[in-house]
């Protein structure tokens, strides 16, 4: 009986750890400690359309529009359109808020975490018209660029910009 309990216990432990292994951790995220570490994202060398959204778990309108970016994957050819979600969450919130959020909200997007707090040094590099309020979304394809200030209310709104790019 004791052996059976032990076996069952071990089985659960095994299953549990294999489930845990599927969890999203910080290693699944591109962490940029300084803005230069993600500057390549803003000057892609391929001909894909890159949709780069700046958000944070503490920003309610940002979180509200994330499902539209997720839905976008079903509406476009994902070989041609890439969604990059750049979180501006704070370092102290990574384990407490950011990682749990990623696990609770599975996403096909390319996840980035930008920890550079010297905002004044890099906000203009994203777009000179950006005041610093989030959310904002940058659409880039080669030399073409469109900066969207504010939130989206449907996946179609995002798609419309992609089509006009």
């Amino acid at each position: 009986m004791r052996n059976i309990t032990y076996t069952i216990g071990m089985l659960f432990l095994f299953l549990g750890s294999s489930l845990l292994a599927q969890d999203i951790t910080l290693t699944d995220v591109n962490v940029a400690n300084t803005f230069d570490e993600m500057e390549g994202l803003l000057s892609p060398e391929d001909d894909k359309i890159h949709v780069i959204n700046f958000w944070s778990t503490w920003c309610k309108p940002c979180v509200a529009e994330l499902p539209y970016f997720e839905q976008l994957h079903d509406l476009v050819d994902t070989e041609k359109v890439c969604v990059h979600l750049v979180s501006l969450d704070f370092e102290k919130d990574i384990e407490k808020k950011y990682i749990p959020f990623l696990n609770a909200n599975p996403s096909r997007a390319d996840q980035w975490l930008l920890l550079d707090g010297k905002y004044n040094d890099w906000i203009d590099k994203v777009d000179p018209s950006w005041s610093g309020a989030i959310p904002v979304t940058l659409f880039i394809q080669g030399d073409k660029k469109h900066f969207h200030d504010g939130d989206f209310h449907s996946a179609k709104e995002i798609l419309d910009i992609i089509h006009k790019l």
Partner: protein
Amino acid sequence: MKYLFLLLISFASINCSISQVDGLDIGDTAPDFSLKNIDGDMISMANYPDAKGYIIVFTCNHCPFAVMYEDRLNDLYNKYNEAGYVLIAINPNDPEVKPDDSFENMIIRAKEKGFAFPYLMDEGQQVYPKYGATKTPHVFLLDTERTVTYIGAIDDNARDASGVEAKFLEDAIASLEKGEPADPATTKAIGCSIKTK
């Protein structure tokens, strides 16, 4: 005729770029306001005829960035009030969109943090668009004539006051004291968008 046409085009594009810029720029005269303070009084800049300058901070209760600067607002008040710089905080958010930023919650938060400066409600959201505030926190430094001398962030490190390397606002006040233009006169920082319906 061709030149006239070109001239017209260039005027059109100039007009276009001007119309895109909302709110105040450096050198503009900031409009006064009359807004309700948390103690129930109506506050205007005209209430302070002897002010050497005004530090107008658009801020709120709910935004993590605004919260991170609450203690620093108290420090700024303590440092500059005696010197004649009037610090006025204004909550630009629509409380129906963000109940945390209701007038009642402003009173509670101001008490908790011991704000000694006015904390006003931009009721009807008429004032923040005239200033061109886009987020919280967003600071406008005005001289005694209400001429804008600095727009932007309080400093370069929202997350950690002890890690600040550039005190943008304090440097701008020092420049104002010397009668020199602020350098930088504008800065940017991440913040929460102003909540509207």
